[in-house]
């Protein structure tokens, strides 16, 4: 199994996944709704408080992602399990991990485009005021990493079921737990609060949004994404044992 052949296979799989997104209106709809809602989040502090800041966007964007990313990822496996094309895919001479990588990267690509669309707003801010560009870059990096985690959760959820709605709900719930864990430390005893802070998105995202790049935060994102991708890979293996 040489690396180049594996790369070419994964590339072919990836391009087909990506096509699957751009051939159907779903991805466009999600991207446009995302753009509208995040546009509102940008515009409200700008016009109501006359401040050129990203805060309200960075704090609310993860909540939007909780809906939009599962909507993007839910079809990855579920659709193929339902239509039977998964059997086609799984009986081609490709590794289950290559299939997974192609699907995850395709979802990540769509999400990256969605996030890139919102860059329009900070660009406007730079034109109008003097925001902290280091903090803005950090915030975007944090949002992207948060999205990458949610996409990994979504891919795994999709690999569990042939029903896209179920896949969406599972991904949403797990994402919501991680989202909410970052918000509850005021109500918890100190020990539990530290744990909740560590598990939740908020503490990591806030540090990045202040422009602080800490390897512990990067390790957090990598472990969450890695864990769910690992589960999805395990899942593909057990599926060969039971359909």
């Amino acid at each position, binding site marked *: *199994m040489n690396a180049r*052949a594996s790369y*070419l*296979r994964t*590339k*072919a*799989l990836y391009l*087909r996944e990506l*096509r*699957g997104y751009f*051939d*159907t209106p779903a991805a466009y709809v999600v991207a446009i709704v995302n753009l509208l809602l995040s546009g509102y989040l940008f515009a409200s502090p700008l016009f109501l408080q006359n401040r050129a800041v990203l805060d309200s966007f960075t704090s609310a964007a993860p909540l939007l992602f909780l809906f939009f990313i599962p909507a993007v990822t839910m079809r990855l496996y579920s659709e193929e399990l339902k*239509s*039977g*094309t998964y*059997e*086609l895919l*799984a*009986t*081609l*001479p*490709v*590794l289950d991990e290559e299939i997974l990588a192609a699907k995850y990267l395709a979802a990540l690509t769509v999400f990256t485009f969605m996030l890139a669309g919102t860059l329009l707003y900070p660009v406007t801010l730079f034109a109008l005021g003097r925001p902290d560009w280091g903090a803005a870059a950090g915030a975007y990096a944090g949002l992207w990493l948060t999205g990458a985690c949610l996409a990994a959760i979504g891919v795994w959820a999709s690999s569990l079921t042939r029903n896209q709605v179920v896949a969406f709900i599972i991904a949403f719930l797990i994402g919501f737990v991680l989202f909410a864990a970052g918000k509850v430390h005021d109500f918890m005893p100190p020990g539990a609060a530290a744990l909740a802070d560590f598990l939740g998105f908020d503490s990591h995202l806030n540090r990045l949004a202040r422009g602080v790049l800490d390897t512990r935060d990067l390790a957090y994102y990598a472990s969450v994404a890695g864990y769910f991708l690992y589960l999805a890979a395990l899942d593909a293996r057990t599926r*060969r*044992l*039971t*359909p």
Partner: protein
Amino acid sequence: MITLKGLTKRFGDVSAVSELSFEVQPREVVGFLGPNGAGKTTTLRMLAGFLAPTSGTAELAGFDVRRDSLEVRRRIGYLPENNPLYEEMDAGEYLEWIADVRGLSGPARSARIRSGVEACGLGEAVAKPIGLLSKGFRQRLGLAAAMLHDPDILLLDEPTSGLDPNKTREVRDLILRLKEAKTVLISTHILPEVEAVCDRAVILHKGRLAAVGAPRELLRQAGGAARVRLCLKPGSEPGGIGAARAVLEAEAGASGVEAVDAREQWEFTLEFAPDAAAPADPREALFRLSVGRGWTLLELRRLEATFESVFRELTL
């Protein structure tokens, strides 16, 4: 080329396939038969590497389906049941995609695609989205995709299901053309297909092997009741068709008589149990009986045992 040894698949408590053993020789076309739910699809899925067996082994081209799944998948062409395809792709694009995933490149890639399109008569479908193709074209596209890398072994799960008779014939001819070069295991429940295409038949019943052999051989073994068709001119017996039937039942020594009044003729199907009392060929006695009764005999013919009756006997 294909060797199954005690292949078993259980889903929870349900045995889908149990202790299945048989072999397929190189360049042999074997029909894989059985009623719905007999375990054909499960078996083919195990051979294609989609499902892992619960126990037992299967080897294709010398590679074990469990240990060397990737090597097996590289050497076989598999057409899954219901022929799933990516609806949104064009037929041509789909073949190109399969070629890419299978690692074909350069002139070999385009040559294989071209020959696939040609062999399966896909010319006019190439530029159309798969979702808009007719069932016949879809089936041929599935076959073309399964054969794109020129595998030695083909596993085809009901390649002609849902096709009209003309399309069935086309697919059958395609398989006959493959026969010289490939080893084919083809699952179906259309029996004339097996007689037309296959060197041997493997009959599965409730996940177990019910019979293996050449279709003719299975016919001979099954033997069964001799059947004779007898047609009379209407009005031959003054009492009507019922009376004629009563005479046949009483005097011909048949174990069963069916009578149909087809207006231009009375049709009888007589069944003779294969026991010592009945004569080897009942036609002579029937001729004499008809002459004696003054009946106008239009037809007297021995009916061959059909593959269908063999199948029914083994799987009911």
